[in-house]
């Protein structure tokens, strides 16, 4: 009887695990399958050409500008969000009283529930007009997109990092404090080192989230496929291109396949990042 029960549970867990893995594999397979014609037909062209004119005759599928825009917006947002997130969680972990912690955590959980559409719209309505007073030529631009993405991913990174800092055994910190290290040094050198895996993981998840964010960049990015020369130039990341055009690209047209290729590129960036973070984490941890 016990055996049957055991095997039943095992089968159940196994089935669910298999299901989720199968779904993931199917997803990747689907994206690759749909982008294959574009890879075969366009070869290297998407990566070297700047001209994204998918609906013209003859069409051009240069994605370089889109890729650069994606990377730019991701790097800038990450550079803002991850350190900021780390400092906030540093404060929460080290200095905040229980009441403070409670209030801040509550605010963060509320923030993380704000839909990206709302953030995008709010930026358009309240922040965008301010730029006009500064004689900035584009009222939707890289700067606003970075602002929106940082705002969106900050709660996410704070909560993940706080959790990983809190997970460090109390004894470690107490030993450090007993040896005469200040609170600041303890958190900076001991706790952070001990939880480096968690923090890196949080950073990677945050970056992945920023890469995949669509609505904000669609609303406030400006939708112009150029490589920006200043922070106030309009941009069009891969996600915005997909969201804006997939509805109109005829199924199985080259445009449609090219958009799937854009999705594949996003997936690759994401996978490479995750892989490196995992590798690094293993060396350190």
């Amino acid at each position, binding site marked *: 009887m016990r055996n049957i029960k055991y095997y039943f549970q095992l089968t159940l867990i196994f089935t669910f695990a298999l299901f989720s893995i199968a779904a993931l594999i199917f997803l990747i397979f689907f994206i690759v399958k749909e982008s294959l014609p574009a890879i075969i037909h366009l070869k290297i062209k998407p990566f070297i050409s*700047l*001209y*994204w*004119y*998918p*609906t*013209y*005759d003859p069409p051009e599928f240069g994605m370089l*500008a889109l890729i650069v825009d994606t990377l730019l917006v991701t790097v800038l947002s990450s550079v803002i969000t991850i350190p900021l997130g780390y400092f906030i969680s540093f404060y929460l972990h080290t200095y905040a009283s229980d009441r403070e912690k409670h209030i801040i955590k509550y605010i963060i959980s509320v923030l993380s529930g704000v839909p990206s559409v709302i953030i995008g719209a709010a930026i358009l309505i309240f922040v*965008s*007009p301010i730029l*006009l007073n500064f004689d900035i*030529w*584009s*009222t*939707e631009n890289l700067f606003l997109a970075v602002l929106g993405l940082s705002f969106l991913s900050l709660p996410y990174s704070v909560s993940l990092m706080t959790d990983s800092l809190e997970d460090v055994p109390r004894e470690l910190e107490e030993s450090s404090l007993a040896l005469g290290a200040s609170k600041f040094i303890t958190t900076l050198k001991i706790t952070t080192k001990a939880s480096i895996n968690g923090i890196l993981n949080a950073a990677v998840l945050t970056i992945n989230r920023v890469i995949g964010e669509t609505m904000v960049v*669609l*609303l406030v990015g*400006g*939708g*112009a*496929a*150029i490589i920006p020369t200043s922070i106030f*130039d*309009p941009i*069009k990341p891969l996600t915005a291109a997909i969201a*804006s*055009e997939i*509805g*109109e690209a*005829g*199924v199985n047209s080259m445009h449609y396949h090219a958009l799937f290729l854009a999705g594949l590129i996003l997936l690759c960036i994401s996978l490479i990042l995750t892989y490196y973070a995992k590798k690094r984490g293993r060396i350190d941890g």
Partner: protein
Amino acid sequence: MRKFLVLILFVFTVFLFSETLVIKGSNTIFPIAQLWIEKLKTIYPDLEITLEGAGSSTGIAALFNKTADIANASRWLKESEIAKMHKEGRYFIPIVIGYDGIAIIVNKNLNLEKISLNTLKKIYTGKIRYWNQVDPNLPKKQIQIYSRNTASGTFETFEKIVLNKEKMAPWVRMVESTRFELETVEKNPYAIAYVGIGYVTDDVRVLKVEGILPTKENILNGVYPISRALYMFLDATNGYPDSGAIKKYITFGLSKEGQELVEKAGYVAAYGF
């Protein structure tokens, strides 16, 4: 077995008493179709109509795979679509329901009244970048160019009539909705955009194109250069529908009342004036 029969009967009666009409297509025609449907609902309460606006091409594609009964389109069929129609042995018929003009809008504070098609083309293709190149009296400010995204019928028409096979400059900002264009132009003193005349509000200035304002007469007479007919395409492979929901919808749309609603939506009626 009896249960099965009852079920069949049930399904059948549902079919008899509710005809669902599916209309998809151009966002430009969306407000017209919405008004028509509202009115039709009061006349035939048991008529079920679903309306989706997603762009002309989407509507026609839906007509091909039979997920829509009527496709609203703000453009004529593309060559590829006509070829596909022949290949599948289908026959779609167009019905003109009204006319739409594309208005070129700028901010109220910009001291500009008219623009030529050629200048407009130069602006959108990026050959002209500053307002003082359009008119020496204007300030030397960069022109902020807005366009609808490639999924919109308005974009297709604009591209065909104004750009004429030339490419838009890459820094033209493609936005997702006409509403957005209007709000931006209202706020931004150096912006230019194009919208269907049905959407024009009093908060923006409409430019004369080639000296002609997009008025009703000018569009009906075909004088205003950036205008187009609006169509309903329907699948007439098995003949023109002589009864049922589709017929009711079309007949109403072309009636005096239906055409008045076209005007109400901000377009130009094609019949009955």
